[in-house]
């Protein structure tokens, strides 16, 4: 293990040679510094719509501002905790989360609401279109028990299977099933992709599937899922998950950033504050990622190149 | 033999293994046999009330069958095992009461040990095994290697200093063991069955080696063995142990000629007496005008060694001690001794 004198001499001379080569090739294109923007930690929550936000912000911050962007694939709750630990600088698409906002924004003051992302969100219960044609009254939740046995699977036992997505998603489904006395069991498929696969299979093979879904989403233009109406949302009706019996509220999706990050004067902070776009914008990038299998970078480039004026506004 | 002040002196030494050894010594329990005691208290007596002195330059052999407590005894003498009771003096020093630091000093400079299974350090070269004691005593590398090379030569391991122990044969490994023990120029060497793991032929070479080293260096030795022949060959005096206690201490001749009890007698029964019997005990006074050979023998010559010269001569040989003829031996004495009709 120990390099003795002689070896050391050889080593140092070869090292010098190496260093010389290195120095000469420096001009040839060194790994350049990330100007003065520094590092931005973007939380990247597990659904494609959010990934589209991340893609575009990452692209612009990297290429227009020279920031060092670190994308963290984490869930919503974990993202909020990241404000406290300093792991996360920004959440680009926040769905409600009043409890978390109260904790991290109001009480701990480690994060701030930095305004709308421009998208409005809907969460709800959906079935594939063929089911509505075949069972027209299924869109009323009161009739769901009638059809429960259609949805039976090996995982749901004697009840109907109601498919949920990622365990981290905003969901009241288990409580709703219980409180609306529906003969269903919530089964977690584990992901958005699994939900899409399930709905696609439902339509293709005419296999009954009911589950959780949301807008904005590119998939709805491929397969227009039908929203099942639950008792209408009224302010505060979802306050206590134990007794909740109403549908999800309409969401105005907003951005949240770490207070210290906002104060750092990073140009990226300004970009993110200004960032806002439409559901269609998001869907087009999301489709590039999910359907066309483009990388985040390529998908973002495609959209950014097509919308220079919007990007310019963000950077202003 | 014990006239000069002893090199090491053991007095009433006990070693009792078990949960509560103190309950044994000095009570009536101490008189129970081993198996009785174990049945009664769960304690095992390994060394029972042992006393002896070893004179400077003496080779003192402790002999016993396995389980007789001889290995425990030798470990008690270097405090590798703490004795339960008794006294142990090295010169005037009370070994049992010295502190850990002084004990280490004794082990580093005065005592040394050779083990049955060699106890070499497999990760060190021969030379570094031998120099280990010097190394931990803070001797500089050059100095300790010079000394190690000296003893390497002494034990006939020239050229093997940079080998690793497991590259050597068993006999050579034990030469390393000997060399290591000699490296610190100790005052007393403890050898715990050093050759019992070796083949008979090699064992004989090694015994000769020990005799040679003893002649050259005159080290005091405490030598443990289970082999009577080895004990007789090497020992100035032999202590025979049984069930932890010493049954008899004496010169090889004493043991063979005057066994203290049945046990010892049984032990030495098969041993050819001519090997231990000295001519001192068979010589006679010369008859008047008897013609004697020119050849003289020392009184401690064994019958076996004397036989050839006596038989080769037509006349009896003189036994000479301090320049004085103290007796003679002739054909009759030798034949009678070998035939065993003496007893």
């Amino acid at each position: 293990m120990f390099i003795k004198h002689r070896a050391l001499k050889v080593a140092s001379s070869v090292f010098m040679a190496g260093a010389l080569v290195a120095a000469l090739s420096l001009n040839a294109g060194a790994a350049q510094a990330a100007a003065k923007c520094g590092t931005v930690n973007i939380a990247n929550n597990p659904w494609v719509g959010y990934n589209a936000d991340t893609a575009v912000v990452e692209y612009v911050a990297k290429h227009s501002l020279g920031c060092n962007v670190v994308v963290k694939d984490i869930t919503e709750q974990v993202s909020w905790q990241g404000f406290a630990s300093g792991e996360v600088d920004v959440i680009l698409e926040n769905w409600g989360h009043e409890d978390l906002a109260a904790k991290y924004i109001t009480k701990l003051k480690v994060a701030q609401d930095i305004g709308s992302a421009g998208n409005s969100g809907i969460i709800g219960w959906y079935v594939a279109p063929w089911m509505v044609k075949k069972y027209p009254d299924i869109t009323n939740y009161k009739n769901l028990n009638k059809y429960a046995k259609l949805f039976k699977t090996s995982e749901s036992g004697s009840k109907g299977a109601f498919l949920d997505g990622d365990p981290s998603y905003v969901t009241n489904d288990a409580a709703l099933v219980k409180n609306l006395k529906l003969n269903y069991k919530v089964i977690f498929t584990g992901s958005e992709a699994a939900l899409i696969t399930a709905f696609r299979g439902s339509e293709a093979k005419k296999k009954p599937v009911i589950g959780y879904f949301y807008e904005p989403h590119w998939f709805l233009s491929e397969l227009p899922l039908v929203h099942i109406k639950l008792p209408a949302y009224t302010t505060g009706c979802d306050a206590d998950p134990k007794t909740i019996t109403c549908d999800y509220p309409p969401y105005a999706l907003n951005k949240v950033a770490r207070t210290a990050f906002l104060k750092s004067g990073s140009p990226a902070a300004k970009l993110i504050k200004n960032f806002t776009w439409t559901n269609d914008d998001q869907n087009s990038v999301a489709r590039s990622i999910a359907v066309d299998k483009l990388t985040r970078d390529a998908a973002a480039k495609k959209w950014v190149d097509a919308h220079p004026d919007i990007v310019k506004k963000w950077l202003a | 033999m014990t006239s000069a002040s002893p090199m090491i002196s053991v007095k009433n030494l006990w070693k009792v293994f078990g949960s509560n050894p103190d309950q044994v010594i000095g009570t009536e329990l101490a008189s129970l046999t081993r198996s009785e005691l174990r049945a009664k208290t769960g304690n095992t007596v390994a060394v029972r009330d042992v006393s002896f002195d070893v004179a400077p330059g003496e080779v003192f052999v402790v002999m016993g069958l396995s389980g007789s407590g001889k290995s425990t005894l030798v470990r008690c003498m270097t405090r590798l095992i703490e004795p339960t009771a008794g006294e142990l003096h090295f010169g005037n020093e009370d070994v049992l009461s010295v502190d850990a630091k002084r004990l280490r000093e004794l082990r580093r400079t005065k005592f040394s040990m050779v083990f049955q299974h060699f106890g070499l350090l497999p990760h060190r070269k021969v030379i570094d095994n031998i120099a280990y004691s010097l190394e931990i005593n803070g001797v500089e590398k050059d100095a300790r290697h010079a000394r190690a090379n000296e003893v390497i030569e002494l034990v006939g391991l020239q050229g093997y200093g940079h080998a690793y122990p497991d590259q050597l044969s068993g006999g050579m490994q034990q030469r390393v063991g000997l060399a290591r023990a000699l490296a610190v120029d100790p005052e007393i060497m403890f050898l715990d069955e050093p050759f019992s793991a070796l083949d008979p032929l090699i064992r004989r070479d090694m015994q000769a080696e020990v005799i040679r080293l003893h002649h050259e260096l005159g080290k005091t030795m405490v030598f443990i063995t289970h082999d009577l022949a080895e004990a007789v060959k090497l020992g100035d005096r032999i202590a025979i142990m049984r069930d932890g206690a010493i049954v008899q201490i004496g010169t090889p001749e004493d043991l063979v000629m005057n066994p203290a009890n049945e046990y010892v007698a049984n032990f030495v029964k098969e041993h050819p007496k001519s090997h231990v019997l000295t001519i001192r005990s068979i010589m006679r006074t010369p008859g008047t005008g008897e013609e004697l050979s020119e050849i003289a023998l020392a009184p401690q010559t064994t019958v076996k060694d004397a036989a050839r010269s006596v038989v080769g001569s037509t006349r009896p040989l003189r036994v000479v001690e301090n320049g004085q003829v103290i007796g003679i031996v002739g054909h009759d004495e030798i034949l009678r001794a070998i035939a065993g009709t003496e007893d």
Partner: protein
Amino acid sequence: MTLTTSAPSEVKKSSKNKYIAALVAGFLVCATFLHGRATLFLDPSTNTSFHSWLNSISDWITFHRTSNPFLQIVVEGIRSFINGLVTFTQNLISQGSGNRSTPIIGWLGVVAIVVFVTFVISNKKIALLAAAGMTSLGLLGYWTESMQTLALTLGAVVLSLLIGIPVGVLAGIFPRFEKLLMPLLDFSQIMPTFVYLSPVTLFFLIGPASATIVTLIYAIPPVLRITSIALREVSTASVEAGISMGSTKWQMLRKIQVPLAKRTIVVGINQTIMAALSMVTIAALINAPGLGQVVLSSLQQLDVGRSFVAGLGIVILAIVLDRSTTAAAAKVEEKEPTEQSKRIRRITVGISAAITAAAVAISHSVTWAATFPGTGVIGQHLSNGVSSASAWLQDHFSNVTNAMTNIVSYLFINPLQWLLAETPWYIVGFAWIALAAIIGGRRVAVISAICIAGIIGTGLWSDTMVTLASTFVAAFITVILGIVMGVWIGRNKRADSIIRPILDAGQVLPAFVYLVPFLGLFNASRFTAILAAVVYAAPAAIKLAADGIRGVPAGMIEAGIAAGSTPWQMIIKVQLPAARRGIALATNQGLIYVLAMIVVGGLVGGGGLGYLVVDGFSQETYFGKGLAAGLAIVLLGVMLDRISQAVAKKNPLQQG
């Protein structure tokens, strides 16, 4: 249900079997008549007061992080120290820092260092393997992610060794200290890796510090345990010689015990590195960056190809780390070579060091050496290939895979779940304790009773029973597989020489990787989790069973052959009964491994406690419930371990 819990441990075997039969019969009768009552079912949306209490602790910690002295000084101190260390290793090889957009050492430098180090600690062949492995990480397109994983692993390994080796040395020297540590070490082995993620994040938040700490919990025990064993196994002859020559304690340690224990300690280091790598990938669940993240997010996107490629990256890293440290352990044995070959080696090492230094210098500043060139086209192709293969399989075999899922679910999982989760808790609990008493005697019965009470206390009895049902099904398959394969490779040397390396490799892989192929084929379901658990647990079970078969004394086999037994009779009448203890051990280990993986299966539709743990990371409202689920898993694990160990102990090895 006529028997009482006071079944003495000396019951004869035949009457023991009778008791068990009576117990099962009684249980089935009660289960049928009292079905659906007192199941302690807890709605997924409901928290018990215990869960809420845990939540409030979590909130308290969140709000007092900056004001409570303990949290502020100790916890935050540890957190920022570890964060600093990890950030340092990350800046070194995986991420840009300050004004740099690339790490301090680029890919070329890292490859050069890895090759150099493997060359020095092992040999040329392994160095070549390392070079190929490291480069392929880049070619697959996951260089950065691999380095993130490696950076975290390195940080955790350094800390593990800094803690594990000295403590192991102490435990090796002081038997009393070791006795004190043993239960802790045993416990950490039973505890599924999954469950300590949450409690750690409670204190250390999401991030590198938590990822490192959970890794430490998992990775320290191997090196600690092996170091202490290594020290104790240093031959008494060497130790005695050392003392007789007057060595001080410190000299003994430094010059004799540690050098002689070195080889074994390196084996411990190898195990610690593998454990760390495995845990770092699981720590993706608490936001540890790297290949684990890729696997996790592609699991979430049902991207079989991508998760396969990332899994492959983990496997490659595992192989490079494993082979080089294994070879290093072998090398410790080698003696110093001759002067001449030493000089040659010195020169080679010197030159390689120089080349490495040059490569590092270049990779520090030159783009092509800093960032792995290319876009990972090979990885892309591989990923697409696997994805389409998986899609093809799904298209063409979905009937088969669905049928398999349904058969196992309806025939085994559902009935078992029906029995365990929908029978009154007092019947199931009583049956458990009675079984524990019959098999293991009073002590095991008391431990089981405490565990059952604890599980009820967590409020998750029903979920625990769901997990237990899956665990039983998986363990059953595992044990059958273990016995069949074990008999085969235990009797057939050639089969052994082929299969054993595969099993060894299988044990090196992080648990996570096993989920991927099954998710593609069987979708999110309990059956997927069961399959993954079987594959994860099988290597250990097969090896133990095979060792048991092989351990049957030769004399017994000769007697069997001499009596004219057919091979089948040999297996059934001689080898299996004689290898009973080995098989019981295989069952015990199989159960523990299966439980660990079944709960990870919560990620892929496994349901039960595993899902609740995942949910606990995912939803703050259910954080406390997730913690409680972790606790229930541990209690379940302890109970299964004790009972199956009692089986192993009650079947003494019949050796001549």
